[in-house]
């Protein structure tokens, strides 16, 4: 039960090294990118990478809480597709009566947020109250949402009305002070997430629940409510990510958000959160997300490898990023 004899370094008494791991990996990628292509550090490229990281990033922040509290959610990708589809249908339907303007955008956003929270609560309810393995619950809802969006779209693509899309577009592409909205929302999510995780009661309760639910129960932590809230929060953040996603291309289809769940979970773990629960860090997740986005970006910016091998390079870098972290830990 104690771990000291087996893995002397696993404890977190010297966090500096485990912290260094992902950061070093990120820096190495940045250096490689800069060396390979002069435009890599251009404002445009940085903005692109950050803005497109925002979807997975916002979701991964929520995933950090779910995993820290000992859960898992495989449904986020298809949940995002479903919410995007729903949002588009509702906005298109409301268009004749509401006309193009701020109100209809707000309606769409409200739909996304409410749908996200409800979807999260459904997952949470099945996991906590019915006590089913999170893996199975969310594998099931993953199939359900994916099917539903295909069905809503009649197998094709749901597209936002063209006029509405033009009106809504700035939510992805514009921003303030040259920083685009997805980046701003992502940054805010991360800041709030980090504070909640490391300084709030809720964050403590998540860690306690994931670490040992019995101890948490005996310490007056409402284990089920904490878990339920992490799922609801993740659902909410999926909704927020969708609000940023829809204005980008104005459409949703069966292929929207495919594999986002694996990417989000990978980002969380690369960032140093423990998959079995009990310890999570939001800022690490951000680094994980950036690492994953940068790999793609760098591969697109160079011609060194056959595009067929992109997946292999990704795989190797993901493993290396985590090795770095563990090696550093082991020395620490």
């Amino acid at each position, binding site marked *: 039960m104690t771990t000291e004899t087996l893995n002397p370094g696993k404890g977190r008494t010297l966090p500096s090294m485990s912290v260094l791991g992902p950061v070093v990996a990120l820096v190495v990628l940045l250096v490689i990118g800069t060396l390979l292509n002069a435009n890599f550090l251009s404002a445009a490229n940085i903005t692109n990478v950050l803005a497109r990281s925002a979807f997975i990033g916002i979701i991964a922040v929520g995933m950090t809480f779910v995993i820290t509290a000992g859960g898992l959610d495989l449904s986020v990708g298809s949940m995002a597709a479903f919410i995007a589809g729903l949002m588009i249908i509702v906005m298109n339907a409301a268009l004749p009566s509401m006309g193009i303007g701020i109100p209809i955008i707000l309606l769409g956003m409200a739909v996304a947020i409410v749908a996200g929270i409800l979807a999260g609560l459904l997952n949470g309810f099945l996991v906590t109250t019915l006590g089913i393995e999170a893996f199975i619950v969310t594998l099931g809802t993953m199939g359900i949402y994916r099917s539903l969006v295909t069905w809503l779209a009649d197998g094709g693509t749901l597209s936002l009305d063209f006029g509405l899309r033009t009106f809504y577009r700035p939510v992805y592409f514009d921003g303030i002070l040259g920083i685009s909205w997805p980046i701003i929302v992502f940054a805010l999510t991360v800041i709030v997430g980090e504070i909640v995780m490391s300084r709030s009661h809720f964050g403590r309760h998540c860690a306690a629940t994931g*670490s040992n639910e019995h*101890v948490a129960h*005996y310490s*007056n932590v409402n284990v089920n409510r904490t878990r339920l809230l992490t799922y609801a929060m993740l659902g909410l953040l999926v909704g927020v990510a969708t609000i940023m996603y829809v204005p980008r291309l104005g459409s949703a289809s069966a292929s929207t958000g495919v594999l986002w769940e694996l990417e989000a979970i990978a980002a969380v773990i690369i960032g140093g959160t423990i998959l079995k629960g009990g310890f999570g860090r939001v800022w690490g997740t951000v680094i994980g997300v950036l690492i994953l986005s940068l790999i793609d970006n760098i591969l697109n910016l160079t011609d060194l490898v056959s595009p067929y091998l992109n997946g292999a390079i990704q795989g190797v870098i993901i493993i290396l990023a985590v090795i770095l972290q563990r090696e550093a830990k082991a020395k620490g």
Partner: protein
Amino acid sequence: MSGSPVLALRDVTKSFGPVEVLHGVSLELRAGEVLALIGENGAGKSTTMKILAGYQPATSGKILLDGEEVTFDSLHEGEEAGIVMIHQEFNLAEQLTVEQNIFLGRELRRGWLLDKARMRRLTREYLDRVNCKVHPDTLVSRLSNSDKQMVEIAKALSRNARVLIMDEPTAVLTGAETRILFDQVRAMKNSGTAILFTSHKLGEVSEIADRVTVLRDGSVVHDGPAVEISEDAMATAMVGRDVSDLYPEKPADDVQSDVMLRVRGLDVPGHAAGIGFDLHRGEILGVAGLIGSGRTEAMEGLCGLRPARAERVEIGGDPVTISKPGDALDHGLCYLTEDRKLRGLLLDKGLRENLTLQALHKFGGYLIDRRAEERALDQAIADFDIRAGQRSMRVGNLSGGNQQKLLLAKVMQSEPRILIVDEPTRGIDIGTKQQIYTFLRKLADDGHGIIVISSEMQEVIGLADRVLVLRSGRLAATLDGDAISEDTIVRHAMGVGADSSERVA
């Protein structure tokens, strides 16, 4: 009685990071001799034992086996050399059965397959040797703590050790079980096994040990034959001061103060039924009973920790309903669990997080006030004499006794008016025990109500103003004044035709 040393340490030191916890320890285990290693919580007993058994490497110094220097590169070599250790922490896989645990790592085979029949039969035999009634196919997660310990002992005995090392094996055992264990220890000793043993129950040490070695702060401060040292002298050598008055003075019980907690008709399905009692202000109420008599479950049910019903619960005269742990805390009612590993502490978290978990609302509104937490930890370390090498260490790396102290400090963070403590001194050294008793009495004197559940008869008798005795989940008697004696308690606890699944505490 004694021959040449089988296993010995010479000038062994051990450091965890920058902290040295053993400073040049030497000791010798001889065949056919029981050596007791005693010392305060955190003195280094468990660490010494782990080094002897090869579970941890020493930082410097030598380990001698039959006079030859050895380094155990893997646990396997320690076992090969016939060294078997019973850990202070349970060392059983919860999801496996008793039989699977006992034979784990050395399963018997017939050809390629397991010889299940033989293993089951042998398990039965080993369990019989320690008079343990559990079925070999029971999952370990379903056993009570004392049964787990007996399984652990059976597992150790089954290995026919040359050297048997036992780290506080009796902490969770009843008196009767302890006697069974000691019978086995004597038998092994007579057949030439070298035995190292530690306990905070000094009476047991006098009873079973041939030699006594006292550790204080990582150094040996006394080593000699057991007959030459009295229990008081042991305590003094360990703690560095006299601890003869273990229990604080009880107040004269002529003033009947008001009732703080009134419970009527408390039912905990499957464990207890129809429990009713009053707890007065300034009173320490003991709860005695056999293992399995439902004491723990009754109090957990009362505090909303497990499903329960009650006809009536009053706190401070007002009727209350308690359906979840938060309700109990809101009414100033707090329960200290008997199982610090599984229900008490987050072993992979630090001291600070554990200390404040239950009373987090006291440390800031939405955000946690880290500085207030640090101050609370300072205070707790001082108040409860918690000895941690570093403040930032994982709680799982604290010595057993210091974990228990931290648990007590944690419970006190919620500032209960009514405190229920379940086996509060398990694994606590005698000096600290005295402090805890004084502390509980002082709480009572300050107007709190205290309920103490304990399987140590002396503790109940020494500490409590009144004693409830439970039998098979029902209240068998309420004793006060001179009626509180070992004899009466046992009589009420056993009753007539007592349930055979219960054992004498």
